[in-house]
């Protein structure tokens, strides 16, 4: 297990996701002290029933969102490798969403700012609850020199992959 000082990554085995949304519950409880699925930094999409999967920051090696921010509201945590949002600086312009290959960041539902996974200071709550259930869709691993950006995919792209695997050709009709 990585120690708290190392940068981390959340490995994800999407086709195993049960869609229980405990990650959304844990994330929003941690950050907002409410059960608030739309304010969660990790959101479970189910564009086709059964193809539920968590959509959240992939921490790309080159951090295109951080580069795209015109007001320097985004930075990279040296401790964890997470993208951090300076809430006060963010103008909710949405440029980070467009820069993200997976269009992963989304606006906070009631405040004028973006929300991005901050890895809970190195102790991601989503991983914790996912592992409690014994499914291990999400696993915390040490961050190494790997192509994490591959996982920054739009909900439609990931859904197409998952339904191809689950339902074969006919799955594409449902996306």
């Amino acid at each position, binding site marked *: 297990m990585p120690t708290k000082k190392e940068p981390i990554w959340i490995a994800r085995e999407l*086709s*195993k996701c*049960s*869609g*229980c*949304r*405990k990650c959304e*519950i844990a994330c*929003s*409880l941690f950050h*907002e*002290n*409410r*059960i*608030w*699925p*739309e*304010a969660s930094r990790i*959101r*479970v*999409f*189910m*564009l*086709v*029933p*059964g193809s*539920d999967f968590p*959509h959240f920051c992939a921490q790309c090696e080159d951090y295109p969102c951080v580069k795209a921010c015109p007001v320097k509201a985004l930075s990279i945590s040296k401790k964890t490798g997470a993208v951090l949002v300076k809430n006060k600086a963010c103008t*909710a*312009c*949405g440029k980070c*969403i467009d820069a993200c290959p997976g*269009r*992963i*960041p*989304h*606006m906070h*539902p*009631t405040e004028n700012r*973006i929300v991005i996974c901050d890895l809970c200071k190195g102790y991601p709550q989503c991983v914790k609850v996912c592992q*409690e*259930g*014994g*499914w291990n869709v999400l696993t915390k691993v040490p961050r190494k020199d790997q192509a994490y950006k591959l996982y920054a995919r*739009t*909900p439609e792209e990931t859904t197409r992959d998952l339904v191809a695997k*689950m*339902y*074969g050709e*006919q799955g594409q*009709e*449902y*996306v």
Partner: protein
Amino acid sequence: MILGYAGKFLEVNLSTGNVKEIKFGDVVLKDYVGGRGLAAKILWDRLGSKWGKIDPLGSENILLFLTGPLTGYFPGGRICVSGKSPQSNGVVGSTVGGEFGVELRCAGYDGIIVTGVSEKPVYLFIKDSDVEIRGAGHVWGKDAKQTVATLTKECRELLKKRYPRYGEWKEPAMLYVGPAGENKVRTAVVAAKWTHAAGYGGYGAVMGSKKLKAVAVKGTGPLPEVADMKRVKRLIKVVNNNAYEDELWRRWGTGAGGYEVGAKTSSEPVRNWQDEWHDEKSFGVDQFENRFWIKHYWSDFGCPTCCLKIAVIKTGKFKGAITDNPDYEMQAYLGPNLGIFTPEENVFLTSLIDDLGLCGIQTGNVMGFAAELFQRGILTKKDLDGIELKWGDVEAFASLAKKIAFREGIGDLLAEGTYRAALKIGKIKNMDLLPYAVQSKGISIGAHGIRSGKDYPEIISYACSVQGGDHTSTTGLPLDGGESELMGIFNDSGVYCNFNSFGISRKVRFNFYEAVTGLKLTREEWCSTKALRVLQLQRAMLLLGGPDLKWDPKIHDANPPRFYEPLPSGPYKGKTTDRAAVEEYKNRYYEAVGWDENGIPLSEILRKLGLKDVNKALEKLR
């Protein structure tokens, strides 16, 4: 305002297109909580004085989609669908799993009250406080999977267009009907997520009668504020940990039942309940799992159990069939009850039933009834429009299911559900066909028999339930027992999944209610006052019935005749239900619940519960 509630309800009149927000006072919410309890209250207040005249499929009926204060908090999200039932002519609190209840609460509503009838097919699209009635002509006639795909895409495009800077929009949660609901089939469901269904009650037909194809909702707010979040978090953990301990329950869901309930407890419907035992190992959970399950853990909001599994047929003539599990009820009713003992055929038929928007339990029941009539030569191939309805012939049952969903030929009669079909076909054939109808008060018996005495329902569980054959609302004594009908009312009024309450003490459930709402609730108060009040309301509306049928407790507080035939085979061969024991138990139950010897709620108890107008309405039945 009581905590744990969004605080307002949406009322939509489909005749006028008028949409408004309404509120219920604290006293009403305290007494009736939500879901099933509140449904009984709303229906009585609005329709009680003319109950017997209300046609469940007419414009005056009210369709309810209600959450409860525990929805989204108690693990396993559900929504309660209700109205005057076209099956029992009473009230059923019919719940279905999924994210709908959570999305609705996050949109700021505790429920939706739908009145009137639309001229053209429509669907409701709710995004927080923006509520639209939109045309559904393009999805009318479409099956479950097509409907979900089309409306999911359409709603997400609307959101994207209206809120271009938000980022990616998740799918809204959706409830919908298939062709069966559109055609007002009394065994039609209100469905979610392709495979989930509110089946008992027949509210798919009510939704169809209102020309309401679907309701889609996206809420961006938090769940309503609770009284004690720390305590809520702790209680969520208690429920989760309890579920995590039961490895096989999680691994198999109810999917082990298809073999075991027959083989071990002799309480599974086999060939329209002519037997309840089978030892067909071909129907074992191992074969479902190894051959068809492509996802082993699928769940609804917050659920630690994940009793759902996704089954897909990838080869052979049924290639392309997709459904969940099938769960035990679907295995039984679309399996052994039709003489089908292969997982492949069962998965195929369940997938078809999902697509058509039919209830697998009640359609499996009525198809089994028809097959027995064919077996006995009462219904001929000609009567069945050329279908040779032999036990085990899955293609024949698939053809029949389609006929039922579209009300074609014989399907039009069977679409009335088992009880009404028995009366109608009996009239044509000039025979009493009720001995073959395995139902109670218009509602098919769930797939758990009583003859062996080895399963959970008791000998009066269906006979005296206010929800007829509903296996999730069975009754018995003691009234305040852990799995009594009064605790069923708690689950369905707090609105969460009862599967996650297995092994959870009543105390924890009441503590949960208190942590969310800030209101103390004891078992005593619940069972002797609040739940009992809901039960009496449901009983009153059930007995007032109408317009096509009414129930007389002396005749209809009864088990189906079949349950008095001896079991013909298996380890419990010869066992049957003792009529004298049923009468004795029924009398004790009547006394405990406050009903007179004829099964009518007593004035004394109704007055004590503050139900004076109910008492007055029941005068004519005494």
